[in-house]
C-alpha cells in the first residue's frame, strides 16, 4: 500500500492542578484533535478546545508540545482571573470555543479512516483506539482545596492519554 491516512482524528485526556489567586483548581479535560504532517513536522490541532496547536518532529513530540501549550494557557488564565469562579468560567469558555473548520476536518478524517482501516500505518497503527462509546468529550474543573480528605484519593489520578478514534 503506497497511501495512508494523512489526517488522523484523535481524542486525548489530560489532568492538571493549577494554583490561582487563593484557589487550587483540578482540571480534567477530554478533548478532540487532529494530527497531520505539514512543513516537515507533525502538527496537532485542537478541535475542542479549538484554539490550540502543537508541533514536533514525531507525533509524540507534537502531543507533548500541544499538552504543554494547554497547560501554559491554564497558567495564563490563573494569572489573569482573580477568583476561582472567573477562572473556571474562562477555562470552560476556552474549552467550548469551537473551531468549525477543524470539527469538519475531524469528522471527515474519521469517516475516511472507517472506510480505509488498512491504510492506518506507522505510529498510529499501534496507538490505543477508542470507539465513540469509550469516551465523553468535556471538561471538569474542581476546587481541590475545598474537598475533604476522604475525597482526595489516588484513585482520582488520571494519566495523560492520546488515542485514535475509530
Amino acid at each position, binding site marked *: 500500500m503506497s*497511501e495512508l491516512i494523512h489526517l488522523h482524528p484523535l481524542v486525548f485526556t489530560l489532568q492538571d492542578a493549577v494554583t490561582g489567586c487563593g484557589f487550587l483548581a483540578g482540571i480534567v479535560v477530554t478533548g478532540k484533535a487532529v494530527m497531520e504532517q505539514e*512543513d516537515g513536522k507533525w502538527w496537532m490541532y485542537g478541535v475542542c478546545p479549538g484554539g490550540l*496547536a502543537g508541533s514536533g518532529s514525531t507525533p*509524540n513530540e507534537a502531543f507533548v508540545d500541544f499538552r504543554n501549550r494547554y497547560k*501554559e494557557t491554564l*497558567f*495564563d488564565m490563573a494569572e*489573569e482571573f482573580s477568583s476561582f469562579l472567573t477562572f473556571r468560567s474562562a477555562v470552560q469558555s476556552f474549552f467550548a470555543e469551537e473551531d468549525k473548520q477543524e470539527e469538519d476536518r475531524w469528522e471527515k*478524517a474519521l469517516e475516511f479512516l472507517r472506510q480505509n482501516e488498512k491504510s492506518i500505518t506507522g505510529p498510529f497503527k499501534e496507538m490505543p483506539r477508542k470507539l465513540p462509546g469509550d469516551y465523553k468529550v468535556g471538561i471538569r474543573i474542581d476546587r481541590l482545596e475545598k474537598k475533604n480528605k476522604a475525597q482526595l484519593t489516588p484513585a482520582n489520578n488520571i494519566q*495523560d492519554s492520546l488515542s485514535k478514534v475509530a
Partner: protein
Amino acid sequence: MSASTPLSKVERMLNECAPGYTIRLANHSRVIHFGGKVYRTFPKADPVENGHIRKLVRFFDISACAATHLPGVIKEEQAELPPEQLKAETPKPQSKPKPAKSQKKR
C-alpha cells in the same frame, strides 16, 4: 523550527481579515480577540511557525481572506476536500506515540 512567517505579516493579514481584532501579551503566549472569540495560544516567538497561523485562521474562520494575504502559508482548507483526498504519500516511519510523562520547560 519549521516554515515560519514574521509577526508583522500576520498582523497585516489580521488588519485586513479580522478588522477590530486586538492582541496582547500574556505570560506564555499572545491573546487575540476577534468577533467575540478569544484565541489564547498564539506563540510569542517572532517569526511564527506557519502551523500556528493556519490554526488561528481556521479558528477565526477567515481562511478565504487570509489565503489572499498569506498565499504561501494558508493552503486550501482540507475541510473542503472530499474524503478520498484526505490521504497522502507515505512519510518516513515515525516513532510510536506514547503518553506524555514529563513537562518540558520552555
